[in-house]
């Protein structure tokens, strides 16, 4: 292994690093920067919707904001953040010295910053950035798209390549580099959920690449995949997109399930209840995600048999998901629970994600969906799953593992303050959106009927509160790194049982250069 025990010095350390911890750190900081960028787009949206009428931005720019907010949050913030956690934690949790393909790992990360620079630069181009919604339905994204759509297409290709390489790396690591004695059914739950997520990514990111390639062909090379005039069909776009898009939402949520499956047992001081059923539930969710895509498009005019099939298949997903929620609650049952910040975020995630799951069940009912479709009810639903489901889990993960990463303890009071402000801000933002949605307010529109004014003002105030609480989060992290109280106990949390709590704190640059012995 040679003599290099510490990291190289200077900027080249980060440019050329193949160390999983360095790369994980870069992923996490990058995703946090994207989270703030996507968040500022959301602030513009909520500022415009503070009152009915047009105040701050023009409708054209508003459309670019809703589109870029979705793209940046999904592909720039949430996905890379979980890849960052995977990089940091998977080798330490399975007792491996590093990822299986360290040089490819470096490349997976370094593709991302230029990609998002390219995507963000479209906002300054002639005709503006992408304005067709993050789902980029044809023909809005082909015939009627601004010229910058070509840059958008290349950005999607590049981020797809990055996620595919990251996923191949994770699968190769988990399959080949587990410590002797760690069978699949002994792996920590976070590793399991990521293994399944990585398979989903490898299977569907190429489909997304196919969708944007067909768009590129339609725009520049005279084909008609999605153009009715040439014998194609715009509805085909929606099928291809959601064949990617539905597994994509589980790609976002499964690692979040993994995080709470680590945090809840630690702070309940009990092993995870129903480990085996968790594994099977995760696998069934992943399988079902491939056969439910058309529930996003009930209104395109599918035959009744199709509507029924997709409706029942979708409702079936509630079964494994409910099994997971049951297991988390049962893990807490009669545990000796303490409510440190990671645990607060994890419990809130379970509760709020379940709320999102219920509104999802409502949306799954095909005849009812005709009313909810493209309304604010949908916006409320998926923010309960994406923000409370994924972002809360990410906050939980950062507080949970930051002492291990830095060797410093975060400020508990500040952490709890961040939690409660986030919790209140989040619910104030998105709960009223259920009501305006049911009353008929459409999504992605910069103006609205006077009767929605009060709830929208509440939503906007909530959004500003939630946005501000993330600055407190940033401050707490920076403060932890610079002034945090040092911790040296390998087992930072007394309930921690997984392998990362056996290495010294802070985690040295190289861990498990010799595999650990498992009981």
């Amino acid at each position, binding site marked *: 292994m040679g003599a290099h025990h510490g990291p190289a010095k200077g900027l080249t350390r980060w440019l050329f690093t193949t160390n999983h911890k360095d790369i994980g750190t870069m992923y996490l900081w990058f995703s946090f920067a994207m989270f703030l960028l996507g968040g500022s787009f959301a602030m513009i949206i909520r500022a415009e919707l503070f009152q009915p009428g047009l105040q701050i931005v023009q409708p054209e720019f508003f459309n670019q904001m809703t589109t870029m907010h979705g793209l940046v949050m999904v592909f720039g913030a949430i996905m890379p953040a979980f890849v960052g956690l995977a990089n940091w934690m998977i080798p330490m949790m399975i007792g491996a010295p590093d990822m299986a393909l360290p040089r490819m790992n470096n490349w997976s990360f370094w593709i991302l910053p230029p990609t998002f620079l390219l995507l963000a630069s479209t906002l300054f181009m002639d005709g503006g950035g992408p304005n067709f919604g993050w789902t980029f339905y044809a023909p809005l994204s082909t015939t009627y798209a601004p010229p910058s759509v070509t840059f958008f297409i290349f950005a999607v290709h590049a981020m797809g390549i990055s996620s595919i390489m990251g996923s191949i790396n994770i699968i190769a690591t988990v399959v*080949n580099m587990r410590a002797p004695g760690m069978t699949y059914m002994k792996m920590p739950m976070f590793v399991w959920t990521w293994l399944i997520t990585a398979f989903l990514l490898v299977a569907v990111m190429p*489909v997304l690449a*196919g969708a944007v390639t067909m768009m590129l062909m339609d725009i520049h*090379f005279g084909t008609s995949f999605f153009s009715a005039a040439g014998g194609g069909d715009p509805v085909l776009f929606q099928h291809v997109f959601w064949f990617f898009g539905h597994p994509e939402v589980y790609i976002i949520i499964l690692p979040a399930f993994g995080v709470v499956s680590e945090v809840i047992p630690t702070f309940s001081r009990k092993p995870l209840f129903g480990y085996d059923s968790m594994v099977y539930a995760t696998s069934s969710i992943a399988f079902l995600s491939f056969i439910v895509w058309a529930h996003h498009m009930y209104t395109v005019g599918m035959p009744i048999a199709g509507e029924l099939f997709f409706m029942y298949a979708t409702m079936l997903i509630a079964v494994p998901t409910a099994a997971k929620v049951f297991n988390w609650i049962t893990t807490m049952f009669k545990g000796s629970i303490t409510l440190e910040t990671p645990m607060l975020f994890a419990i809130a995630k379970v509760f709020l994600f379940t709320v999102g799951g219920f509104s999802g069940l409502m949306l799954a009912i095909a005849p009812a969906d005709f009313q909810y479709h493209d309304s604010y009810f949908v916006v409320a639903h998926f923010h309960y799953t994406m923000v409370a489901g994924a972002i809360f889990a990410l906050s939980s993960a950062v507080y949970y593992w930051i002492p291990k990463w830095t060797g410093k303890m975060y400020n508990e009071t500040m952490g709890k303050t961040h939690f409660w402000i986030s919790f209140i801000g989040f619910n104030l933002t998105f709960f009223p959106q259920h009501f305006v949605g049911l009353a008929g307010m459409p999504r992605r529109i910069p103006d609205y009927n006077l009767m929605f004014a009060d709830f929208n003002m509440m939503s906007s105030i909530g959004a500003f509160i939630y946005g501000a609480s993330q600055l407190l989060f940033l401050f707490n992290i920076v403060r932890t790194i610079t002034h945090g109280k040092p911790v040296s106990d390998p087992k930072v949390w007394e309930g921690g049982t997984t392998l990362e709590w056996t290495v010294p704190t802070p985690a040295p640059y190289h861990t498990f250069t010799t595999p650990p012995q498992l009981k």
Partner: protein
Amino acid sequence: MATQADKNIKVLSVKLAGLVVVMFAFAMWVMPPLYNALCEALGINGKTNGQQYTVVDSQIDTNRIVKVQFVAQNNEMMPWEFAPNTSQIEVHPGESNQVTYYAKNTQDKFMVSQAIPSIVPSRAAEYFHKTECFCFNQQPLAAGKNADLALQFIIDRDLPKDIHVITLSYTIFDVTEMAAKQDSVAASSK
């Protein structure tokens, strides 16, 4: 010095990369034809198949009358005048009929159009045979010119008994740019 573990990692990565290629190919070359084939086989999106029908037998079922209605629509941003010359006719299944649509290029430039059919009820689509149709090809018109565009069709004698009215709609699209692009792509590939 490749250990067994290194070899396993390599083999697995190559397999996964293979899966990536397969899935990309699936999206690009399997999904679109599969979608069209399914729509056609199940007759679910009201598309008549774009091919010319060859008459197999010319027996006419004079006991049955089916009403066929003609509708015309302009796709957004298509400035032509476009309308059926006859809005509805009554036909016997098996009999050959001809109607025309009127089209006029109202602009002062050469334009190319493409008409896309849709049939209601969509179940009738597979029983609606076209022996001649302006929708089979792109229709060019010089500035200010007009034309009557012909459609010949036969309703199949196997048309389900409960269908008494068929509505055929054409939406006309402006494909001037697309046609020019296809020409230039075809020219450059020669």
